[in-house]
């Protein structure tokens, strides 16, 4: 049999630059966000919020320490969200508070994601004794209750932003560790990892080159969800009076609203906006995080074979000569 000449093989490759499934994780993430309405909304919201927080000193109509008028002034054209119990412009406070909340959220998440990912990968990859050891440590941290711990820290070392960040980070890395460990264990069994081992690759190479890239998308999804958790936790701590007294965060705004008679004065504009903003952040993070998670699991996306209503196109007039 005469072998087919080269051109035939070239024909089977398509020359257009974008392959059906992009291998680069960043590309994949971008695609997910673009195509999923919930992810786009979530990402969009987060982007806007981050921008507002960064630009707060520039775009806030009033400074955080500027008394702009009488306390409990209702919203007007000049003060879109009115003035709070101290006569400060609520809208400006919201922007500054957003800064602090986001700062704490991102910083705490950085710690928890980093520690959690490392622990998860090491435990999942090595298994055996190492896995047991790390998981017992994880269990230990898992049961430390947040509130009493924070109270103790506040009491002994004082409550400032740094301490809050460390506490939240130190108690939430466990969630990440457990999730990443499960994923690492699965990836470890995949053929290409076994093959790398058979080739003689060392642990470092396998983890860095093969394991980590496969785990990254999950890390990203998990991080986004952690951010919402961290911000929410900070808000809760601040609300309970364990926040940094020198900083305004969304949580302290709510705390003040409760403690300083805003409610009995009927000043809803000082009570609702900070809480609503926290809710928006959490929703945005959840939308984005879940969409990323879903895109990682192909089984969730593809509908299984079930007797669905399929479309029947009416039989077109037969092409001349097309025989049956």
């Amino acid at each position: 049999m005469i072998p087919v000449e080269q051109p035939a093989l070239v024909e089977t490759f398509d020359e257009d630059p974008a392959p059906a499934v992009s291998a680069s994780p960043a590309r994949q993430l971008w695609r997910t966000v673009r195509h999923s309405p919930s992810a786009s909304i979530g990402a969009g919201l987060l982007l806007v919020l981050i921008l507002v927080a960064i630009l707060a000193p520039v775009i806030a109509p009033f400074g955080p320490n500027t008394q702009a008028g009488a306390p409990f002034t209702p919203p007007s054209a000049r003060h879109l969200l009115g003035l709070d119990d101290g006569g400060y412009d609520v809208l400006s406070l919201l922007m500054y508070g957003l800064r602090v909340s986001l700062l704490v959220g991102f910083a705490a998440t950085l710690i928890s994601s980093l520690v959690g990912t490392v622990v998860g990968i090491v435990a999942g990859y090595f298994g055996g004794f190492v896995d047991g050891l790390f998981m017992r440590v994880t269990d230990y941290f898992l049961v430390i209750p947040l509130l009493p711990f924070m109270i103790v820290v506040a009491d002994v070392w004082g409550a400032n932003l740094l301490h809050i960040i460390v506490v939240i980070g130190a108690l939430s890395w466990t969630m990440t560790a457990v999730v990443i460990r499960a994923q690492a264990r699965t990836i470890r069994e995949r053929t290409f990892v076994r093959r790398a081992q058979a080739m003689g690759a060392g642990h470092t190479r396998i983890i860095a080159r093969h394991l980590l890239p496969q785990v990254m998308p999950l890390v990203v999804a998990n991080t986004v969800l952690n951010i919402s958790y961290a911000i929410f936790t900070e808000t809760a701590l601040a609300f309970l009076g364990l926040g940094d007294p020198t900083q305004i965060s969304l949580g302290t705004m709510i705390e003040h609203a409760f403690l300083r008679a805003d409610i009995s004065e009927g000043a809803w504009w000082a009570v609702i906006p900070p809480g609503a903003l926290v809710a928006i952040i959490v929703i945005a993070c959840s939308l984005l995080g879940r969409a990323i998670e879903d895109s990682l699991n192909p089984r969730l996306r593809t509908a299984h074979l079930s007797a669905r209503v399929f479309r029947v196109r009416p039989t077109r007039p037969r092409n001349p000569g097309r025989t049956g």
Partner: protein
Amino acid sequence: MALLEITELMKYHQRPRGLVQTLLRQPAEAVHAVDDVSFTVDKGEMLALVGESGCGKTTTAQTILRLLDPGAGTIRFRDEDITTFSQRRLRSLRRQMQIVYQDPYESLDPRLRVGQSIEEPLQIHGIGQSARERRALVTQVLARVDLTPPGLYIDRYPHELSGGQRQRVAIAAALAVQPQLLIADEPVSMLDVSVRAGIMNLLRGLCRSDGMGILMITHDLAIAGHFADRIAVMYLGRVVEIGDAREVLRNPKHPYTQALCDVAPRHRRTGRSAGLRILGGEPADAASIPSGCRFRTRCPKAEDRCSAEDPQLRQMPGRPAGHQAACLLADQW
């Protein structure tokens, strides 16, 4: 001196105990995955290890590569006893023993380009002084596996290639370090029929041209017959017949081999239904192997003494040297 020599290899698994069993302190069942296996692979030769699932062929391969630790027996590679080498010592040896897996869709890292996948073993074993030199080697080996022009493939991702092409990439990665022994675990069973011969010819060519020894694991007797030099048939952890490929398939002496030959694909159907020996039942549980000859429960020719004596591999009288079978009654047919 044989390239690879396995003697009386044993590998048992512990079957995990259920909760009740653990509480009652019942001993875990031992699964006799590899139960006294011996064979050799020479340079420039392809030995096919044939058997159904659960017969222990994949476990044997993994044990040879020391990805699993053998329970007993010896593994000699290039006349060196590597049975008890530490993983560290084995690292450098791994260059000489490479493996190609069954699933071309899973054996390549989907995030690495073809060139990177092939370059990896070079990097691991320190071959090639510079990135450019390594790329040149990668190009060379791509040409050897008939992925030409190499430039067309080297920067592709695995998902852009067909199954046959991916398998060639996997073979290229194994070849890049110029191993002396290649273990191919069902290299074509997941590929379309039309591309199987291409891959198998490639492998056989490597035996001839490079003097590489290939241990091919397969359940497909016909492929083994077409391409391998020798065949070893395994059943429940034991080699039951071994010898020259053509010889064993023309004159199978062990009833299991005979049954496998009967159900293997043949183009001529005439007279197939008559006397077709389709074995009933399925292979016995590897945790409870029958006494005496382990095949006797399914053997159409078993006699009383088959339950008393465990047959060993022995030269078949009247057949060419090297054709051995583990059957007490083989002299009769």
